[in-house]
């Protein structure tokens, strides 16, 4: 058993209620965060982990209020630093199951550097990035995922910054598990959460989330029933990349390294692009796609194995102890050159 699996002691049978804390939920009525909270509380019992071994760590933002509402251990920390705090916690206590909850501002603006490093280190954490393309808690400034030209309080004639794509960024950082889901799709969220939680290493999920107060329907292209049917591309390992309404199925295929949308019926089945979660290259090309010119990939873009940071650290420790025994401070103090005065 690797140190990071140590937490898997037998868990009691829980219900959703067991994961609801006694705190008033303080989001705006209608906020997408409610759905995510509910999905998570619902998913938790299925993870089979004793409640006391679960910890939620967050930064600051509307999304980062999350830990208060989960009846597990929780730490609402400071803006952008949740991945670093979680790394320290994980190194101290590799048997805990740790979730990091962050926002597009918390995780990609002030916290971008920690995100980069936690991803490359592949610390065993599940990171939920609530992307509402806006700063909610500070009342509506544009965020690093807001579209270029976004008009907000801080950009009355439009923003001048090209947005960052969380998935492309994560992949550029060497992430080993990257997925996307949508706050309005509870079963899919549930599935992604389980997949990410089971991943060995950093499981990174972008959750498209609605801020109905400051950026309502920013993701309408995937909320609106009609548009969703047109654009949602469900990624499923081993399945071809097909999307669109039944009467107008389209296929995403490759022209060289350039994705192209064609009518499904126009291409032979053998040339369809089969989704392969273990192909990081494919994930990188998928990550950049979005409506209207392309479908919106939803699901697991990539899931690959790689060394896990704290596993290596703990292995080094165990090796040192098993080879030379546990440390003895008295011996340490008298090691090397000493001399006696009497």
């Amino acid at each position, binding site marked *: 058993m690797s140190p990071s699996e140590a937490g898997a002691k037998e868990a009691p049978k829980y219900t959703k209620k067991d994961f609801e804390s006694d705190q008033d939920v303080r989001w705006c009525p209608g906020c997408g965060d409610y759905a995510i909270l509910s999905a998570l509380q619902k998913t938790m019992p299925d993870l089979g982990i004793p409640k006391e071994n679960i910890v939620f760590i967050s930064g600051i933002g509307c999304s980062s209020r999350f830990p208060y509402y989960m009846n597990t251990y929780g730490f609402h*920390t400071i803006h952008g630093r949740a991945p670093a705090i979680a790394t*320290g916690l994980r190194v101290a*206590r590799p048997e*805990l199951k740790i979730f990091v909850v962050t926002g597009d501002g918390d995780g990609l603006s002030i916290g971008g550097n920690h995100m980069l490093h936690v991803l490359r280190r592949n610390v065993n954490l599940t990171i939920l990035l609530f992307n509402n393309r806006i700063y909610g808690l500070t009342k509506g400034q544009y965020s690093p995922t807001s579209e270029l030209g976004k008009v907000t309080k801080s950009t009355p004639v439009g923003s001048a910054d090209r947005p960052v794509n969380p998935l492309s960024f994560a992949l550029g950082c060497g992430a080993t598990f990257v997925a996307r889901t949508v706050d309005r799709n509870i079963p899919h969220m549930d599935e992604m959460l389980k997949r990410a939680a089971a991943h060995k290493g950093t499981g990174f999920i972008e959750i498209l989330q609605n801020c109905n107060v400051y950026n309502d329907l920013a993701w309408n292209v995937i909320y609106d029933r009609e548009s969703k049917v047109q654009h949602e591309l469900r990624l499923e390992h081993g399945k071809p990349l097909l999307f669109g309404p039944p009467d107008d199925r389209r296929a995403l295929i490759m022209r060289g390294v350039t994705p192209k949308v064609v009518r499904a019926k126009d291409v032979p089945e053998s040339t369809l692009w089969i989704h392969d979660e273990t192909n990081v290259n494919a994930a990188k090309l998928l990550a950049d796609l979005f409506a209207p010119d392309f479908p919106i990939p939803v699901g697991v873009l990539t899931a690959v194995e790689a060394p896990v940071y704290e596993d290596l650290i703990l292995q080094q420790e165990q090796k040192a102890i098993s080879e030379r025994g546990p440390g003895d401070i008295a011996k340490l103090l008298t090691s090397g*050159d000493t001399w006696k005065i009497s």
Partner: protein
Amino acid sequence: MGQIATPATGAEKSRKALDRAVIRFAGDSGDGMQLTGEQFTTESAWAGNDLATLPNFPAEIRAPAGTLFGVSSFQLQFGSQRVYTPGDRLDCLVAMNPAALKVHLRDLKTGGLLIVNTPAFDKRNLDKAGYATNPLDDPTLAERYRLHKVDMTGLTHEAIKDLPLNTKEKDRTKNFFALGLVSWIYTRPLEPTLDWIKKRFAKNKDIAEANTRVLKAGHAFGETAEIFGEHYAVEPAEMAPGLYRAMTGNRALAWGLIAAAQRSKLPLVYGAYPITPASDILHELALHKRFRVRTIQAEDEIAAVTAAIGASFGGAIGVTASSGPGIALKSEGIGLAVTAELPLVVLNIQRAGPSTGMPTKTEQADLMQALYGRNSEAPVVVLAPATPGDCFYIAYEAVRLAAKYMVPVLVLSDGFLANGSEPWLIPDVTTLPPIEIQFRTEREGFFPYLRDSATLARPWVRPGTPGLEHRIGGIEKQDVTGNISYDPDNHDHMVRTRAEKVRRVAQEIPPTSINGPATGDLLVVGWGGTYGSITAAVEQAQTAGKSVASIHLRHLNPLPPDLGHILREYRKVLVPEINSGQLVRVLRAEYLVDAVGFNRVRGLPLPSEEIYEAINQLLGSTP
């Protein structure tokens, strides 16, 4: 030939007893001066002397040969009596090249011993050092100092000419010639160095042989050459009996942390981002995985401190360290630990600033930052070690207090303590105060901010404890329950409670020990790495019959409970610091005493001579 002070003939060499001596080895960064100094230190320790050292090297990794900014030096003072500092002015200077002479000569006492490596004084090197003419040709040099021009390079090559090494390799051993020579002059035992060479170069016999021969050649040169009229013995100092080792401040901090983690039976998680002069603590800790020391080289200082906080939240000993700019970056994180009321130890190895400043130079100008460098009222415990060896005890104490009071503890070491070393009496670890961690496991009546009545500490709960699931955070919280609260009176109460908790740490502080009369004309108050300089200066003044005492603060926040009383027992109070006057402001504000500062911010330890002068000046007399 000792050319002025001792116009020796070929007569038998006399051995003169000295109380103490201050030696500096100076040369190019590539000349191995740090190693030479360290070996000389070990020899002196073996000889039973008390001692203190001051390594001093450039910020550049390998500064170009021969330049002034590339000079590296190592100074030590050793003696048959208590040695408090590496010394102010030099009894002996070894200058391996013109740049070293240029930079360091001014510190040599008139009549002091000056040993130079003549072949290094060639046109190229003289140019680089900015000498228009060869200073060795200037007769005043030999008039003012006991100048010895030695062809170290030549003698070195001669000693090992038959060994299969190339010229560069041979050249590199010449520092052992200098070491051998100076060892002879001060009657140091060569054994420890010979031992060291054997171990260090076990895999390279030729280099081992070369260094051995050159060391002995230097020694023999002193003995046989006609030029050294006398040499010196420094008797063993009277030191507490026991087993000793040389200890630098950074290693002592690392070991103190390890000892505390062991005693508390917890893993130590150390988050750090490399920075001079704190990096060596990381390097040292990374060696000790058997002690469940887990080092995280973080992406930056913010990640380092927050990772440590995460570890503390998890029930481990969370520690971080940095210097100057890095500590500034940790301010926000430390504030989180204050309000989350988690134990956290932050080591600040102060260096000369502001901003990047002079990274390899020492300073003690981060006291105010330690006390106040966070937004809002965010009090923390502040400790400072007095000597390299004391770093061990301070690190241990920092962990103990942090865990007992659930509070961040900041430790202010500095570049001088970090790299300086002293003979250190190895303690019996079982005699250290116990660190008893009692994680809360009892569900009944649990609240995350329920407080211990003696310490006001809230319970430390390890995630993983069934039934105690709870949430904490950086928003203001209701006392006891820990729930988010914006209630005005609760906020006032929490601000006062966090302050009171830190104030209660005063009950841990032993009575302040006074070096000198309990009442008198002048009290000198110090903190941190200036302990040695101040003590030396005060003892000098006492010897001169002045009514002067000194105290040294290891606890800067809270201050010792007896401090106000002590301060009022003296007519005047002097506070020497390597800053523009920080502790002195604290004392004035706290006790309304008209304390005055003595402040020099030169990136160097305070010379005890200057403190002595300041004492005399304040007493209204000339020395």
